[in-house]
């Protein structure tokens, strides 16, 4: 068995997959569910309910606000308390729909049985029908970024998809929600992959799984033993293998060119295992996206675990159910320690992209003191995009935007490998992100002209 990985850079953070062998529990219903209207990349959704409206589990509460957008469904039954603003992970106030929970009544058309619906039993499903159902169900990328899934399945006419690559890598430390999903719902994921293949009109799919999850690799190889066109690709453990471009490189050995090129330009459509599962539920069970698998973890958390969470559940409730925050300083991240964003308040709800709540405590909660750059070049070795992070960081802090653009700052995938590997703990990524943001807005304003 040959083990593949991507070619350039990468780092090996400590795994800390504390919750890997803990089976998923169903999280308790919240008292009040909060639904931010912008849980995805693109235009925010538009509310279609009003204060005082009764909703059930699976009722549409906000429709897509544009082409690149996704509708939002209620994950609880109850009454719409208000349409207001509430703080999101960054602390800024964003529009939300707040629902007071009363009971647990589901919409009738949702199939709540565990029966496995096979695509082979439903030959009437056309690719267009599948894409439409994915679009209507509000499925977005479940890996974190939250790009509406149906758009990825309709590539631009200049590109032709040849295969679907399923991301079962989960290269971030701590997070185990995708792993648990793979172990507990392998059949549904495989059906989801078949649906994605049919929707994208391709006849080849790869499932990339890192070799720190041997049980998942074994399970999927057994399940796909008699399926010719789905191939399991074991990958060496390396961060950021879950990045689209890195995964395409690792699995089919093709390099995605610099932006604006996307993986489909080299023939690949990359989707997360969580997305494959959501696609299965949306198409076969008529279940819109309103709950997800989330890991609540941290070295100091008393009872970490994996949860099936209704979206809109506040972080505080999940953390309390795991034994509460440890004493002292804590950094609570929406996501893992590499890509996750520190939240300002525990009132923030679980959204479509919240794959993990990671609590770093005590020593880990603080950054280490910044030392001068010693020109070791480790950041250059670590960069999976072949950039020179030390240079980009310096140029960003000097606001040399023209030079930054020449140095391909827009290719940066914000994985943070440079900052992770820096022996002087320099805020390399923070600086690059500042410069990248400025360069992106310069490019945008130039395109408008």
């Amino acid at each position, binding site marked *: 068995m040959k083990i593949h990985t991507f070619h350039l850079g990468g780092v090996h953070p400590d795994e800390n997959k504390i919750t890997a062998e803990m089976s998923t529990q169903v999280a308790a219903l919240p008292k009040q569910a909060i639904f931010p209207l912008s849980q995805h990349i693109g235009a925010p959704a538009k509310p279609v309910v009003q204060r005082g409206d009764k909703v059930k589990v699976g009722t549409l509460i906000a429709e897509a606000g544009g082409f690149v957008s996704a509708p939002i469904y209620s994950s609880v039954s109850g009454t719409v308390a208000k349409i207001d*603003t509430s*703080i999101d992970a*960054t*602390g*800024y*106030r964003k529009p939300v729909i707040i629902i007071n929970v009363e009971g647990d009544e589901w919409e009738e058309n949702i199939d709540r049985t565990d029966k496995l619906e096979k695509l082979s039993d439903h030959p009437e499903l056309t690719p267009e029908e599948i894409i439409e159902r994915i679009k209507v169900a509000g499925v977005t990328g479940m890996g974190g970024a939250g790009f509406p899934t149906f758009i990825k399945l309709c590539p631009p006419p200049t590109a032709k998809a040849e295969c679907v690559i399923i991301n079962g890598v989960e290269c971030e430390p701590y997070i185990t929600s995708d792993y648990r999903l793979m172990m507990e719902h392998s059949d549904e994921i495989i059906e989801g992959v078949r649906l994605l293949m049919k929707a994208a009109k391709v006849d080849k799919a790869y499932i990339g799984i890192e070799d720190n999850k041997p049980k998942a690799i074994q399970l999927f190889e057994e399940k796909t033993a008699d399926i010719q066109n789905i191939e399991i690709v074991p990958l060496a453990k390396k961060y950021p293998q879950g990045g689209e471009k890195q995964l395409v490189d690792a699995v089919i050995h093709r390099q995605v060119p610099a932006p604006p090129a996307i993986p489909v330009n080299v023939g690949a459509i990359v989707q997360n295992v969580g997305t494959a599962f959501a696609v299965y539920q949306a198409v076969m069970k008529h279940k819109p996206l309103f709950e997800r698998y989330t890991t609540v973890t941290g070295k100091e958390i008393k009872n970490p675990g994996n949860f099936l969470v209704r979206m809109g559940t506040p972080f505080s409730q999940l953390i309390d159910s795991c034994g509460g925050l440890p004493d002292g*300083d804590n*950094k609570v991240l929406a996501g893992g320690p590499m890509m996750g*964003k*520190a939240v*300002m*308040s525990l009132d923030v709800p679980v959204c479509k992209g919240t794959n993990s709540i990671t609590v770093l405590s005590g020593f880990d909660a*603080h*950054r280490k003191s910044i030392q001068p750059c010693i020109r070791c070049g480790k950041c250059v070795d670590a960069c999976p995009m072949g950039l020179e992070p030390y240079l980009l960081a310096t140029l960003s802090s000097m606001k040399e935007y023209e030079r930054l653009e020449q140095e391909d700052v827009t290719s940066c995938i914000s994985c943070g490998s440079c900052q992770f590997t820096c022996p002087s703990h320099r*805020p390399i990524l*923070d*600086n690059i*992100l*500042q410069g990248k*943001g400025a360069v992106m807005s310069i490019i945008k304003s130039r395109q408008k002209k």
Partner: protein
Amino acid sequence: MNFIIIAVLVLGTIALVSSLVLYFVSKKFAVTEDPRIGQVIDLLPGANCGGCGFAGCSGMADALVKGADKGSIDGLRCPVGGDLVMNKVSDLLGMAMANTEPMVAVVRCNGTCEFRPRIAEYDGLHTCAAMHSTCAGETGCGYGCLGCGDCVAACQFDAIHINPSTGLPEVDEEKCTSCGACTKACPRHIMELRKKGPKGRRVYVQCVNKDKGAVARKNCAVACIGCGKCQKVCKFEAITIENNLSYIDYNKCRMCTKCVDECPTGAIVKVNFPVRKSTANIEKTESNIKEEEKA
């Protein structure tokens, strides 16, 4: 000895030919620059701060001279030099210069540690721009001062300093040249250029929070809650309220300070007003008491 003479002759000829070429080229392609531009540059402060909107003082001088040729230098003003410099420039160019009122930068946030409690600790890059783009700051207010001092770094005249006891920037009125560099540097547009006012007196809303009243008040004790009381009490229609935030138009404000007394949260402030009224009252009462005692 022969080769020395040859060398001198060859080099001398090259020098002669090149100097002739250079002479004719400089005559033929001479760029005649208006001598006034140089004179204006000499008059300008030479800080190259960009406050006038041009890249530096030479750009401003060029624009002034071109404007003078067209017959008007309205709208061109060196904020650093002020009327002193602009009068000299207009004398030189023979133009009439309308005196404009001096401006000063003001900090429109009063969210000190006392009024605006910290709810989180920011651990990232220590600039306002970085903090603004990653999170709402260390307090619940997503509009207020972040206190990392981007305005301090932008000020070329050493006029802005962070007060360590409040964590907020303070503008030194004497040093501020109203170049506007701080207003551009502040990611939250808290710094504003306002009229310096007679005797430096001015009234303004020291808050930029656009949240609804209850939310704003919860996060900061001195936030503008958009209640509209100031608007009602103002006789000069100088106050507008938009997005739960009051704004005083400094061109209409007559500084009656009624809004200052009316504001329930103390978000409207008056600066450089003599504290006469209150002390007078105290003196009066004190003298009354004395008189009463005598009686």
